[in-house]
């Protein structure tokens, strides 16, 4: 499961680099997504980018939409759906 987290954190850094966004020094589970340096557009790019690298977009798949506040919640959503993907 830690792979998903790594992919996400890597993606955040790459998108920040490509879009000239400055990330806060420490990224951890408590980091608030929209405060960590990614703006809302950066966040939308992140989700599209992860769809490319992980092969799914949980925000399209979820029946009950949930919007995460923190990085921890965000990772948890991807971990949950990556399990579903693996089963499918």
């Amino acid at each position, binding site marked *: 499961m830690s792979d998903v987290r790594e992919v996400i954190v890597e993606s955040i850094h790459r998108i920040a680099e490509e879009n000239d966004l400055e990330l806060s020094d420490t990224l951890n589970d408590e980091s608030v997504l929209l405060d960590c340096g990614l703006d809302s*557009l950066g966040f939308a790019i992140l*989700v599209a980018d992860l769809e490319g690298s992980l092969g799914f977009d949980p925000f399209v798949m979820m029946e009950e939409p949930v*919007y995460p506040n923190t990085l921890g919640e965000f990772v948890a959503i991807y971990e949950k759906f990556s399990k579903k993907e693996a089963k499918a």
Partner: protein
Amino acid sequence: MLKAQISEPFSVISDIGPHTIADGCEPITLQGLQQLKEKCIALHCHPANLVKYVIELDGVADSVLLVPYDACEAFSRRVEEKLNLDLVLTDGIVNIEHWKIDVTDLGELSKSSADDHSELAAEYETQWLLATSGTTGTPKIVAHTIESLTRTTSKGTKSEHLSWGLLYDPARFAGFQVVLQAILANAKLIVPSPDLDFESKIEYLAANACNALSATPSLWRKILMGKAAGQLNLKQITLGGEIADQRIINSLVKQFPDAEITHIFASTEAGVGFSVKDKKAGFPVSWLESGIRGVKLKISSQETLCLQNTHVNQTYLGGDGSIADAEGWIDTGDLVEIENDRVLFKGRLNGAINIGGNKVIPEDIESEILGIPGVFQVAVRAKSSSIAGSLVEALVVPDPALGDTSSLAKNIKQHCKKALPSFKVPAFVRLVDELPMGMAGKIKR
């Protein structure tokens, strides 16, 4: 007149101090108003002041152009060229350096004088001039009347306890709608400072007990992601400007189970079309037969939605032509499709893409990118995003002469950031070997 419709004091809460607009307590003196009678005025103020002076000027001025808070020099040039403006009214808070015509400080018109107690007799149907969000950086100006703008506005007692938050610029169509809604319902209006970032605006609204809010679906997703969403206790939720899909409606129902949820179909060109309140995407098929509140609806042969508004009186100003056809039908350019008992929105006919409520013509961005060294061909299209509705994607074929393409994508983004408004900057730049072509050899977007 708007002022006549305010039965109780109308409160506006903002960072420039709360103020109440009540009968007999006009910010502009009678003398001041006399000077403005039948004039064509550009109103360029802080949003909270703009609201205040809109009420003052309705019925007095011939026409009032609402100038967006962040209007730039290009905007001033364009409207000075197109409209026969008499003067610019300002509150001294905004940057007015780029106006060439006379600028009058509203403070000058508000100083008390002796003959202030009589009434200004004449009443005019003031025209309200609003700039479209603009596809090429050259906004089109559309004239409205208060009537055309408030047809679907509820004026009942039910809405009186609402405190409307203003997330849009009141000088834009969507923001002006919220302002009129609040005025006509005797609701409070909460105006966060336009200089705050988005999350701080939501916090400001929550701190001031905002319970009614209008935003685009993209903004609503942003609100739901933020921390302050939990502090909002909303009774009325309005969505507009983009397609409100079932997903975002469901998310809002979940977060705000007690709120009424309305999605509005409106545009700067057509004025208010209609609103849907049943928490379902699209609108009922039966409305194609029956119409809805004075608006007739039909689907054109091109599968776009057309509206016939019984109160049509909008025109483009400055020689941009008439909006409606001879029979009064306005083609919205929005593609629709019937699914079971609903008519659902599918996007724009002319290929314009909708980015966060802004209309974007792909060719505009393409021509900008084509000018960048190292770019051979480019196609710009919308990429749907589960988070932001649609984002701009640019497919770029690098110039074969360019050896190292590693920094090209970043260069393109940086160039666009400098040259284009933020919503037009491609979120994705993909380098490809060739562009997708259609049967007729045209680039497929």
